[in-house]
């Protein structure tokens, strides 16, 4: 059977209470609950903060230890950055590298033996030849083999003349090369 609270002091109506009494009444009934809940919340936050602080100090210790390990690698780091710098610079200067020996191989391959070369100028993507031969058909062969050479581009005959005293033909040829 439910018990009924006995209250001998007659309850005043809330509306009739003075402002101070109203505040007191509210504080006793609701305010304390609110304050306790807020305090609980703040205490929870405090404990959470303590946990975070503990974790932070552990992680900071780790960071400090690892920083000192990294510092001990400073010579390796310096050497590595130096190597990387050199590789990068060498890559830069080796880009579009002109290899004259490859050009010389082309000349040796495409120029017939009875043609003598008076002047050979090798430049990036360009070969200039001043050649001499007593046999004009050899020049035809040379130009034909250069035209069909996959490593060469355009072959331009700049000039040709006969030397009656030597009975030889002289040719000026300019050859564009593809990337070797």
């Amino acid at each position, binding site marked *: 059977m439910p018990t009924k609270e006995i209250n001998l002091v007659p309850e005043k109506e809330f509306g009739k209470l003075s402002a101070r009494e109203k505040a007191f009444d509210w504080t006793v009934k609701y305010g304390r609950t609110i304050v306790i809940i807020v305090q609980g919340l703040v205490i929870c936050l405090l404990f959470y903060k303590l946990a975070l602080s503990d974790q932070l100090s552990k992680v900071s210790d780790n960071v400090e230890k690892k920083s000192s390990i990294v510092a001990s690698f400073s010579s390796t780091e310096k050497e590595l950055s130096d190597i990387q710098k050199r590789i990068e610079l060498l890559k830069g200067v080796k880009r579009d590298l*002109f290899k004259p020996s490859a050009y010389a191989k082309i000349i040796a391959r495409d120029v017939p033996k009875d043609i003598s070369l008076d002047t050979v100028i090798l430049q990036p993507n360009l070969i200039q030849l001043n050649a001499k031969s007593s046999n004009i058909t050899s020049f035809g062969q040379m130009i034909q083999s250069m035209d069909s050479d996959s490593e060469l581009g355009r072959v331009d005959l700049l000039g040709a003349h006969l030397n009656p005293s030597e009975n030889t033909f002289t040719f000026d040829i300019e050859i564009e090369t593809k990337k070797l």
Partner: protein
Amino acid sequence: MISRLTRTVSLLNKKEKRAYSILTMSLFTISLLAIFIVRPSIKIVAQYQKNLAQAKAADAALTEKIVNLDKAKVNIEEQKDNITKLYRQLPKDMMQEALLTNLARTATAYNISIVKMGIDQSHEMGKKGLNSVNITLDVAGTYDSITGLVSSLENSERFIKFTSISVENKDGKNTGTMNITVFYLN
């Protein structure tokens, strides 16, 4: 505004007035406590969380760096020979004496005489400390020996970049002019 509020309050009955008064006081208190007590605590906790996240990120980055540096150390040890070659290809100084000795030795090996040598002043290339020196070599020898010298210089320890080459045959004598560039770090 105030008169409308007073009018509205006067329309309420006693129970409603009580309920609204309690509700108003409670909301006011909750707001006050939230602003002055809960908010600073949350702010502090948020700051700690942020610091912890940063510290964890730094920790992870350092761990990765240590692992990578460890690997790098091993790799450097393994690639010692190649690294030595790299240092020879692109030395720290001009090393003029070693370069000239190498040129002279290679020329001698191919029976070539160096007639003239012109060394241009060094030029700074870009901002990375790379310097270049242009060298002009006038040589005399057979066509094959000149091309042999070129091939040998192309594969020399010190990186040599050819700019142009010309070989001339006059009365059975071959003379050649080579324009080359060597590099060094400053």
